[in-house]
């Protein structure tokens, strides 16, 4: 018997699954004009900030204008990637049949081509959430973030890799799809046709992205080219750091659990919901914080209902939490600083080899360890 499946009795897990389904049905039935108005408003704001940011950089010789320009452009990129791109590409607005809001047509202002990301994120990560050897978001093929990942001296560099990744996050997200670690281990061939297709999508996208931020817009500002270049680089960096922070807080704080393939075999719908809750963590904050995080601050709700418009997550969070309490399930949440600190500790801790004997129970353990200890 395994941890994930022992958590609740079969009757409980079924009732729990039904309660989650009921939330979903209620929200889906209520979707309408307000949801479209909301996302269109966010898009308008994003476009406005982007145009304003680009325009202000034409006056970049004046330091306050440069700063304001970078600020506006950073916010535009954050909104584009988080509340718009991520959510639209999850199919949250496919029901509107509006092409600009179609998960299959949307392209975002970052290096990773939408189509590659939809495979690695929407399919792999969201289907196999926190399943070891399946969900490649566990450490992104670079980091050791879970005790069940076998230690190797390479992981001594964990904190360095994480820091570098934070700075170049948009490139990291793009390269994530190539699964370099698997190529190195010989599990995947560079000439694999699927990989070839992915690479074929990357080059043109990267050329366009680099072209506008680092060639065209700087050139257009003439003598200010270096300042514009620097401004655009700063905006990209700000977005990188922000996205990294929010995304790492989604699954890596302490007490988030991971699972084995065996314990997730033949999962029922209720068990699938349960795994999403145990494998995700929220961040508390105000409405603006939630918007800027693309509502990934409601990572638990997002993983339960990835295709429901993200603006609905705050609406149902209290209810999801109450259901968790009712069934004695954890609901991992806390302010950004607490979650970030927890992630940082984990990155450092798992850089080191596991201690041979344990004196006290560790906070970061697989569910099955807890059960075996309890037994």
């Amino acid at each position, binding site marked *: 018997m395994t941890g994930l499946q022992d958590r609740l009795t079969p009757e409980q897990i079924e009732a729990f699954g039904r309660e989650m389904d009921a939330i979903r049905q209620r929200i889906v039935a209520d979707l309408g004009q307000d949801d479209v*108005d909301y996302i269109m408003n966010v898009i308008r704001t994003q476009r406005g900030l982007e145009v304003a940011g680009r325009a202000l950089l034409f006056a970049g010789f004046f330091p306050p204008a440069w700063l304001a320009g970078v600020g506006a452009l950073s916010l535009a990129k954050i909104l584009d990637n988080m509340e718009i791109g991520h959510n639209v590409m999850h199919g949250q607005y496919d*029901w509107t*049949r*509006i092409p600009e809001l179609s998960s299959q047509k949307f392209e975002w202002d970052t290096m990773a081509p939408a189509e590659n990301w939809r495979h690695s994120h*929407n399919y792999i990560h969201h289907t196999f959430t926190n399943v070891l050897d399946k969900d490649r978001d566990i450490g992104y093929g670079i980091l050791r973030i879970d005790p069940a990942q076998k230690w190797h001296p390479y992981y001594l560099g964990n904190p360095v890799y994480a820091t570098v990744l934070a700075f170049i996050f948009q490139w990291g997200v793009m390269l994530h799809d190539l699964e370099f670690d698997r190529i190195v281990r010989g599990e995947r061939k560079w000439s694999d046709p699927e990989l070839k297709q992915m690479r074929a999508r990357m080059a043109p996208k990267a050329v366009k992205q680099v*072209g*506008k931020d680092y060639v065209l817009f700087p050139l257009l500002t003439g003598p200010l080219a270096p300042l514009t270049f620097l401004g655009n680089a700063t905006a990209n960096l700000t977005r990188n750091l922000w996205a990294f922070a929010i995304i790492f807080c989604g699954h890596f704080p302490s007490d988030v659990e991971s699972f084995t393939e065996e314990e997730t075999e033949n999962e029922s719908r209720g068990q699938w919901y349960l795994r999403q809750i145990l494998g995700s963590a929220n961040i508390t904050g105000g409405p603006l914080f939630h918007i800027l995080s693309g509502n990934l601050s409601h990572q638990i709700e997002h993983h339960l209902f990835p295709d429901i418009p993200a603006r609905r997550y705050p609406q149902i969070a209290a209810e999801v939490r109450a259901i968790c309490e009712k069934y004695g399930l954890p609901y991992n949440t806390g302010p950004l600083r607490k979650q970030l600190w927890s992630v940082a500790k984990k990155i450092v801790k798992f850089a080191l080899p596991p201690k041979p004997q344990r004196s006290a129970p560790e906070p970061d353990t697989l569910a099955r360890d807890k059960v075996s200890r309890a037994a």
Partner: protein
Amino acid sequence: MRLAALAEALLTPHGIDRYLELVHPMLVRRELRGEVTAVEHQTADTVTLTLRPSSAWRGFQAGQYVRVSVDIDGVRRTRCYSPAGSQHRAGQLELTIKEQGLVSGHLQRMRPGQVVGLSQADGAFTLPGRRPKRLLMISGGSGITPLMAMLRTLADEGHDGEVVFLHYANTPADLLYAGELARQAPNVRVVTAYTHAGDGFFSRKHLVAAAPWYADAPAYVCGPAPLMDAVRAVYDREKLGAQLITEEFTPPELVIDETAAEGTVRFAHSGVEFPNSGRPLLEQAEEAGLSPEHGCRMGICFSCTKVKARGRVRNAKSGEVSGEDNEEIQLCISVPAGDVEIDA
């Protein structure tokens, strides 16, 4: 043009339209939209909209149709309408729409200044390049619109051949374009029949009375299904079927039995066709030897989203049945309800 390419490169990945539309919805360069410039109610249950298409509009051939899109309760809905104006009036599109169904109902309440989505014109229901000397046009109700377009196009071209325009309306109050039909040039003979006022429905007698030479001329027909069927029956009986050029005005009513697996599933690009087994489309496609891109098989990842060209599917998650042409569906949770064609 070079400036437009530079603008696109600067505004990648969203493209110039996504910015221009925020200034004004009609400024879009690639997409096609129409601004309502005039609204007229010719009869109690129709509206005639005059639209000014945006710059991408390439014009149309009389008889063709355009897809009109409007957002209703947050959902974009699309229906086809045939422009009723002459194809020679550039930059102007006239649609006469009968109040029936969601989109047509919505369009009844349009006001000047409002903007709708448009497609380029499409359809093979058009006049031949060399205009026939003698022509017969038969229409019913709002099926008059593509034929009105032909009539007006021919007038603009100074066509002087003999044209008979046989039109069916319920009562005189339902007759569209009544004034204009009464003022036609001498070579055009307009015959109106009021089905609810004693004239009855289409018959061979009507045909002979209106155009005794009907056996020697092409006949363009557009209207409700019973009218189309009646005309086809007369022509078929006289082995004149090849002279009929028809436009389906209303799609045939479909009776959906959600429990029975009926119809044929067709994947257009691969040309694979198989009988519907009642299972989700992804499974059926795989059983037929296809391997569509897919992911979670539970409707959450949208990896298997494809365009359904035609037919109705039931969403296994919501139970909702949808039958719109060219709509995106998720193969893994869509069950065909009758004939379905997928663009894959």
